[in-house]
């Protein structure tokens, strides 16, 4: 029953499952409403056609009780959805800022600064064992169109854009966030399984929008550190090779 979801249909983040549940809940509500209203409409048509010429019709227009019913019922449904999803929304956009229940600060690893530009993703990581600074540092590691993150915990990226609006979208993790010029937006998510996930731009950003596909590589913390070491060694390569003796 997952075939309309991207990839193999599973969400590969903790929050992703909850977002899928919300999707199904709304799907059920909408289906019941659609089937119910269609049935009511069908009944009304059938009933109206069956009225005899000399029979008196009933005008529902202006019926106070009907108006009240179809105002209250959808409002209640909407209110229910609004309240029910609050927790997921808070977890997606707010709880990262809050403290843990015991008062300790949340542990979110800030992995990288992701800068979208027409039409690619440029990514800056701090060196191993260092925190990400808002400005570039001499030992930062750079990659393009390939975002590496460690699995097994919340990670966060700082999302920026060099030019127009873009949107950071990882369908299989159910993460989507607009990148707005002049803003540095923290986006947090986790990847439950190591693997390669499609990373796209989800905001029409120009004629080359389709070129902005990239890859999110989720790997274990050890692999992530090893990758960073390797990338750093490549980036600071001076090209000198000892001649063979």
């Amino acid at each position, binding site marked *: 029953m997952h*075939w309309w979801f991207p*990839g*193999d*249909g599973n969400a590969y983040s903790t929050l992703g499952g909850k977002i899928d549940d919300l999707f199904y809940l709304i799907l059920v509500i909408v289906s019941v409403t659609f089937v119910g209203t269609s049935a009511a409409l069908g009944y009304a048509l059938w009933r109206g056609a069956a009225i005899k010429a000399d029979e008196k019709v009933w005008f529902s227009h202006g019926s106070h009780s009907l108006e009240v019913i179809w105002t209250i019922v959808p409002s209640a449904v909407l209110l229910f959805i609004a309240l029910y999803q609050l927790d997921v929304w808070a977890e997606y956009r707010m709880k990262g800022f809050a403290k843990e229940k015991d008062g300790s600060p949340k542990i979110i690893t800030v992995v990288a600064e992701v800068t979208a530009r*027409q*039409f*690619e993703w*440029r990514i800056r990581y701090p060196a191993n064992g260092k925190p990400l600074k808002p400005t*570039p*540092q*001499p030992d930062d590691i*750079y990659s*393009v*169109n*390939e975002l590496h993150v460690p699995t097994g915990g919340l990670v966060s990226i700082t999302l920026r854009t060099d030019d127009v609006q873009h949107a950071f979208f990882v369908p299989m993790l159910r993460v989507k966030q607009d990148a707005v010029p002049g803003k540095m937006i923290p986006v947090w998510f986790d990847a439950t399984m190591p693997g*390669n996930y*499609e990373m796209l731009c989800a905001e029409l950003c120009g*004629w*080359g929008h389709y*070129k*902005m*596909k*990239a*890859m999110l590589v989720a790997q274990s913390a050890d692999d992530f550190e090893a990758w960073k070491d390797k990338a750093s060694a*490549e*980036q*600071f*390569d*001076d*090209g*000198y*090779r000892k001649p063979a003796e």
Partner: protein
Amino acid sequence: MFRENFPISMPRFTRTGFNVLVTFGLAVINSGCGEAPQAKFKYRPTTEDLIPEANKAVVKTLTEDFGTPEKLVAWERFPVDYGGVKGTVAANDGPAGAFSVTLDGDAGKIAKGASLLWVTGSQAGGKSAEATVKSFNAVTKTLQLASASTAPVAGDRFIVAFGEDMQLGRVVYMKNCMHCHGVTGDGDGPTGKFLNPRPRDYRNGKFKFTSTQSQEKATRDDLHRIVQYGIPGTYMPSFLLLGKRETTAVVEYVRWLAIRGEFEKRFVEELTNDYSESVIVDSIKKAQASYEEKKRNKEEAEKPLSESKAKKEAAAAFKKYVDDKELDGAIEETANLLAAAWTQSETPEVSVVPTSQRVEDTPESRERGRLLYMSNTTKCYTCHGPTGRGDGAATEDFWDKPGTSVKFEKRGLHDEWGNPLKPRNLTLGQYRGGRRPLDLFRRIRAGIKGTPMPAFGETVLKDPQVWDVVNYVMSLPYQQKQPTAVKHPAEVVAKNEEKPAN
């Protein structure tokens, strides 16, 4: 491509439905827009300017030897890998038209109906009609041809599906590159004119960021790197996820376009002086002016030819040029030159490799680098500015167009393609040709091709000195404050001379 990483696991029926929808949608769209315009190679203005006879000869050569975008022609003289599965006949022991083979590449790729071309042996050189593969058994490595012609001998070389990489490269190019770089590779695609910096025009055969010496062509690896990682600070994006085969193919196609473009450029340069319409018109104008001048002075003078007569004479001269096989000679010479240049760029001898390790990045090394940067041996500051912001005095001057005494209309430096060019602002930490110390070393040692950035040879800067400059340049983006006030260059030179860097 993505499919490899993300297998699509939709049930069969949904996909079919989707395909039907897409097909229907495309049908609707297509009926609205009519047929797509045919892709065509454009010719240079100098080609169009030739007298009709010469122009026809150039167009004929280019069409016969390089083809059109729809129908490519592989000129095997050039070091371009056109693609295909190469192999050798191991033994010819089967029934007629069947023989066992050893393949160089991936055996799974030989499809039924693929064409087979003999490279060596009695049937090579077009002596036999083109053979077609009837079947290929990947297990026994037996190749069955559709028609049994002269039996091949063990050791004969052949290529199956010759040119398939080139065709793939063309498809990838048309999808991803043509939009800016144009069908011909002239940097004049539909979006090209709106970009700054302008997309590269390959037809000079020059690429800016390479690993080779200043006079050499780019290597395949250089182009591969650019396609993979893009050029930060320009509109060239990264195509990291294109797939290895696609990237290799598109690099070959771009090399081929560069060769085609430079062939046209050099070939036409041979003809321009004698057979170009504008040159003929100009010379007549000059002759006419001097004739009138002389007449005014009552000197004896010969009336110059009329324009149509001059053109007729040029046409006759061109016919002689063709009859004397000089045209063929020019083609030969140009092709030889290009083939040699593109072969040489791949050899390790022309690659720029430092002979010493990077000097340790200490404040002392940076200071030595700074003094070199401000010295009159390198004159870095004249373009990149005393603080490295790319605002040196050279950006304020009006410069001559190369080879002429006419000035550019705009202030500042220009590249070989005639586009305004700003010296790089070194404080941004943005490195177009790559941010490895090796990349910066190569930029200084071999310069940037087609731009005023010169190559600093061994006589000007020794390797450790280049590393000092690299260390200084790499420290520029992270300087909090200038340690001392910027000194007047003369003062710095004096200081540099009293304290030699080595």
